[in-house]
């Protein structure tokens, strides 16, 4: 074990993946010698050469199209989109091409080797073009997998599983936690299974569900609620697509209540999908309406970021609202 922050854990995962498999190639804007604007690909070019770790021109649709072609040939491209806010020029390549490659060809071809890595989320004074959480757009696309880690240990294991996964994965990294989140991480290779949520804390009064950077926010709210005598079960969804409805439903059947927290705006956010599914699976077990604590339906603000975000106080209030319904 070694103490690592999330960037070091991601860098370590990429290093191990490239050492293990020659077909793993990392590229994106500033990814080469510089090691990425956040340094996630630091030293990889030095170690594995310019052919396997390189800068690309400033073209997200080009990066995604290039990745599709490489993966169709059988390689495992790990392509970085510098900010999730800038993934939209690549939307057609990802939604119409990556996601449908295997299906439309009847499995003659596939691009399952792809991982698109991209820093997402707010809390860094980034305003609306350096803070967005676009996971719901991609969760609406059959053929993709969408994964979001909450800490360095999870980031390494989930990223390595994403690289070996036979389906294309969009791996959103909570950039707020890149350096802020540290923890003990095994130095050797390990994978964490995709598509499985994790119950991070057992409780009996309410299930609190989140992912990525919001996990530490809800944890803070849960600790406040516990001082009021409310016992919370906490779940990290980890995979947004496919998502582990069974684990969430089992928990809600036990607690009778569910709160979902995400950074992205409320309307059309992934919490709506979870709420609809869980109310159907757990209808007779629910003791209060499912609560959603999310970003407001505005572009991500700058000066008023604190007011906008789905913070621990809003979450704490929603926990109480649910329990006292």
């Amino acid at each position: 074990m070694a103490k690592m922050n999330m960037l070091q854990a991601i860098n370590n995962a990429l290093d191990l993946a490239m050492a293990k498999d020659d077909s793993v190639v990392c590229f994106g804007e500033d990814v080469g010698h510089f090691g990425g604007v956040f340094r996630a690909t630091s030293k990889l070019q030095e170690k594995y050469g310019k052919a396997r770790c390189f800068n690309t021109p400033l073209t997200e649709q080009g990066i995604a199209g290039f990745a599709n072609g490489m993966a169709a040939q059988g390689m495992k491209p790990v392509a970085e989109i510098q900010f999730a806010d800038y993934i939209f020029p690549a939307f057609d390549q990802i939604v119409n091409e990556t996601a449908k490659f295997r299906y439309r060809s009847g499995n003659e071809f596939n691009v399952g080797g792809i991982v698109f890595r991209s820093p997402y989320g707010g809390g860094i004074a980034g305003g609306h073009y350096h803070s967005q959480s676009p996971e719901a757009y991609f969760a609406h696309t059959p053929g993709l997998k969408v994964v979001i880690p909450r800490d360095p240990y999870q980031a390494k294991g989930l990223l390595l599983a994403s690289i070996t996964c036979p389906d294309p994965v969009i791996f959103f990294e909570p950039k707020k936690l890149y350096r802020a989140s540290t923890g003990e991480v095994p130095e050797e290779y390990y994978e964490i299974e995709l598509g499985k949520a994790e119950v991070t804390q057992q409780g009996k009064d309410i299930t609190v569900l989140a992912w990525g950077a919001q996990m530490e926010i809800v944890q803070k709210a849960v600790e406040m609620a516990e001082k009021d005598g409310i016992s919370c079960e906490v779940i990290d969804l980890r995979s947004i697509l496919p998502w582990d409805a069974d684990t969430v439903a089992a928990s809600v059947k036990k607690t009778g209540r569910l709160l979902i927290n995400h950074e992205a705006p409320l309307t059309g956010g992934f919490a709506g999908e979870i709420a609809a599914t869980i109310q159907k699976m757990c209808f007779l077990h629910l003791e209060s309406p499912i609560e959603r604590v999310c970003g407001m339906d505005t572009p991500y603000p700058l000066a008023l970021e604190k007011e906008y975000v789905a913070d621990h106080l809003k979450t704490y209030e929603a926990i109480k609202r649910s329990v006292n319904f």
Partner: protein
Amino acid sequence: MTNPNNATITTVHTAEFTAGDALKIPTLRILRDDGSLYEGAVAPELDKATAIKMYDTMVFIRVLDERMLAAQRQGRISFYMQCLGEEATTVGSAAALAEQDMIMAQYREQGALRYRGFTLEQFMNQLFSNEKDLGKGRQMPVHYGSKDIYYMTISSPLGTQIPQASGYAYAQKLRGLANTTICYFGEGAASEGDFHAGLNMAAVHKAPVIFFCRNNGYAISTPASEQFVGDGIACRAVGYGMKALRVDGADILAVYQATKMARDHALKHNEPVLIESIAYRLGAHSSSDDPSGYRSKEEEEKWRQNDPIARFRLWLVEKGWLNDADDKATIEALRTEILDALKVAEKVAKPGIEHLISDVYAEPIPALQQQLDELKAHIRKYPDAYPVTAGRLD
């Protein structure tokens, strides 16, 4: 002085424009309409077997197009796209490639597909989206693809294959393969952002890809004059620092020669090359289109004189490799063969219900399995409403 790329650039001391039409790319023509060679032109080295295969493929595709457009008009298939007038473009270029060079096409390249060996049965199974279709009946007619013959499955969104071809060719280079990728697209698709993205990526990362632009004058109804300004698409390659060639796309010898040169260069120097081929789209865009609303019969007649098959036939007859009388019998035989294959394919069952969810992922995710189980229960309740699958759910 140098530019930030450290390339030497020339300087002037009084301001002057470089004209927007300063770069004019010449167009290679080898074969005249009467089957003779242009003065100074040399025919590429072609053995008889290859030349006859090229000719047979063009004839096959023309007859296939004629029959299948008729089948669409009869309501037997839902949609069709012919390549009338462009047969030499795709057959001539495919003939210049190695069998394991990847072909990433747009949708009007059935000539290249047939040259690679796609069988009549495979064409029919795709067109009828039956259970023998390699694509499992998921895409509209003419979206062919086959891993065995290195022909990437067609995707409808325009231009998406361009940056993909750059990535595919880069991967071929990384793996040390002596193969290239050819990427076909139209002059309309060259207006997409993916064109720029793909060419720039290939140029910067030295991917051995041949970008093959079929400039056929029309994007559905939009004429080339409303698609771009100036000399054509080839000159754009020069802006990306890439070698360019332009050919008369109805001249199969010119197309073959240019593609051979492009392939050799791409592999020898690990560089992309762009070929622009000019051949008029004589047919409609698709079976859903009617060109009489946007162009004149006179215009079509003018281009019809440039028939790529007639021109090549004259050359082959002149060489003594083809007997003109043979041709009519061949065409009749082909018509019968195609009709017979059509009758077989239209009776083959549609894909089974499991193929609604297969291949979305490598293995179906739990939610998909559950949705399929619910659907099967529903179909069992209303079997008459779902005749294709009701009788064979297990």
